[in-house]
């Protein structure tokens, strides 16, 4: 296990994000300190309005902080121009949204191929890569469906396929299962967990405490800063990850796994 010795991918120091001016001034992030290493699966929890999504947007270079430091791969982000930032988003960051955010007038395969467009890959190559990616997610038969013809779980899997098609080093997920039922949520979390095992860095925002069991590190936030920061034992992550994909009696199994642990 060389993981802990890897250099930090993301380093935040006293990060601040202010909204509004004057009377309406409000800090969504207020002195956030965080270091994330390569290969971590981080679940960020916290009450509504504690700045989780704002944090994710800043980490994904969609938003800019108003104070403090954010180093991505050792480079201070505020010194990077908008064009380079777009390039980083294209090459290194994959987004997964709560509301999936597929483009409704494009077919599934075109949606997945979309990020490759901005890398300057030819159409044929793009569709080929997208098709491969969809096959990985068992969506090979749905390539030419339109997004509205898919179920929520399938849609989110398409969105994950899209986030991964660029082979990003960081995956940012904003409540990826927020719009899904528990079965679909489980499938999605399995996928994310598989990705984590393959060495991807995943940062996930969630409301659901049960989902934190998939993560290697759980951070709770309150009022724009870190409240608690818990590492989860890798063994536990492994046992959970081993469960079959299509297990319908997920909650029971989970309890059993927990019971087994307790006496030991």
């Amino acid at each position, binding site marked *: 296990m060389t993981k802990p010795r890897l250099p930090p991918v993301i380093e935040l120091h006293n990060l601040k994000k202010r909204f509004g001016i004057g009377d309406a001034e409000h800090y969504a992030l207020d002195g956030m300190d965080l270091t994330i290493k390569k290969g971590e699966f981080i679940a960020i929890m916290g009450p509504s309005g504690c700045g989780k999504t704002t944090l994710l947007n800043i980490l994904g270079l*969609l938003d800019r902080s108003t104070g403090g430091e954010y180093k991505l791969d050792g480079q201070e982000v505020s010194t990077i121009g908008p064009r380079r930032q*777009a*390039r980083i*988003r294209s090459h290194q960051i994959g987004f997964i949204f709560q509301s999936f*955010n*597929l483009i409704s007038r*494009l077919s599934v395969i075109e949606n997945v191929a*979309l990020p490759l467009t*901005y890398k300057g890959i030819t159409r044929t190559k793009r569709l080929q890569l997208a098709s491969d990616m969809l096959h990985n997610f068992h969506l090979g038969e749905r390539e030419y469906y339109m997004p509205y013809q898919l179920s929520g779980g399938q849609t989110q899997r398409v969105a994950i396929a899209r986030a991964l098609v*660029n082979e990003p080093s960081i995956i940012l997920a904003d409540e990826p299962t927020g719009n899904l039922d528990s079965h679909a949520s489980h499938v999605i979390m399995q996928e994310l967990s598989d990705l984590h095992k393959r060495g991807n860095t995943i940062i996930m925002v969630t409301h659901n405490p049960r989902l934190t069991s998939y993560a290697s590190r759980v951070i709770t936030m309150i009022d724009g800063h870190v409240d608690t920061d818990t590492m989860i034992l890798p063994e536990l992550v492994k046992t959970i990850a081993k469960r079959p994909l299509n297990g319908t009696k997920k909650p029971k199994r989970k309890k059993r796994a927990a019971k087994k642990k307790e006496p030991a």
Partner: protein
Amino acid sequence: MRFLLLNHIQNAYQSLRSNRMRSNLTMLGVTIGVASITTILALSAGASKVVSDQVDALGGNIAVIRPGASPDDPLQNLTQPKIGREYAASTLTEGDLALVRSINGVSAAAPMMILSGTVKADQTAPDNTPIVATTPEFSDISGLEVRTGQFIDDVINPDTAVVGVQLSINIFGTEDSIGKTLTIRGKSFTVVGILTRMDDPINYNQVDFDTAVIVSLYNGKLLNQGVAQIQQINIKSTSVSDLSQVIIDANKALLSSHNNENDFTILSGDQISRPTSQLFYAIAGVSAAVAGISLLVGGIGIMNIMLVSVAERTREIGIRKALGATNSDIAAQFIIESLAIGIGGGISGYIIGYIFAFGISTFLTFDPVINWQIAAIALFISLIVGTFFGLYPAIRAARKDPIDSLREYN
């Protein structure tokens, strides 16, 4: 980066196709504008070509003398038509004609005296039937061909006339009216010749010979209270190289006989057709301005639709930005879309414009001209309209904040 342009084009194609009705209607605005401009340009080029073709066809050895000094300002040429001169006595006289004929290098010179009056036979000819009084040389200089019979002549009975084929049909009801009698201002003339159909009412003589009647200068004077009222003297030089010298000599001779008063104009080559083509260009310019307004409206239509399209796709813009699109990628996507509308409208407008031009030309005596300049103008205009009116929506799209865009519900 190499393939991005291609991507944007595919993208624009896709999004235009997904809103087919809307795209086509927007395109229609540009189509109408470009079509009207194409029609106007094609027809006006055709009209001015008719005049210049005639001058070319006559060879480079024709010059005409017209009464009155030529206005230097081309605009004055247009705004002061010859109406004013109709009431004034012409400054050209029979003496001038004799003078010109005597110049070295002049092979023929013919006067033109254009009268108006009632021409009658079985039926009365239309009011504006031109009565041209001239000398026999005229047919040679102006290239008039006689279909049957002969041109007016010095030796035959002076009370004879040559009629245009259309006039013959109008007043006698037949093309073959040789030997029949017509009356001009109450005086009888026998038809001795019928002209071949020319089909060009626009020519440097400013007379449509298909509907004209030609009589001798002697009779012309009789019809005009014995005064020769010469509107134009046509000169033909012995060879093309002589023409410039002939013009200089004629100018000198006429100046000295007119007491150094510059009250005449000698025109040759392009100059002959210039007032006519200038008139056409002015008409074309005015109608092109009207067409330009419709183009402006079409452009505003593009801008309108593009703004709607940007607003509709706010969320898509957010997604694309999150997936790595730069501001210029987004701007390019929308610019290319509006450019596609512009070019599409331009191409269909060009085609429809020519269909229109050819349709209209069946009622006219000349054909529209097809040349690369008009195609280039049509394409250029549509490019400009597409870019100019697409620019603002594209910039708006590019400047959208990704987070706000993603929050949008649609």
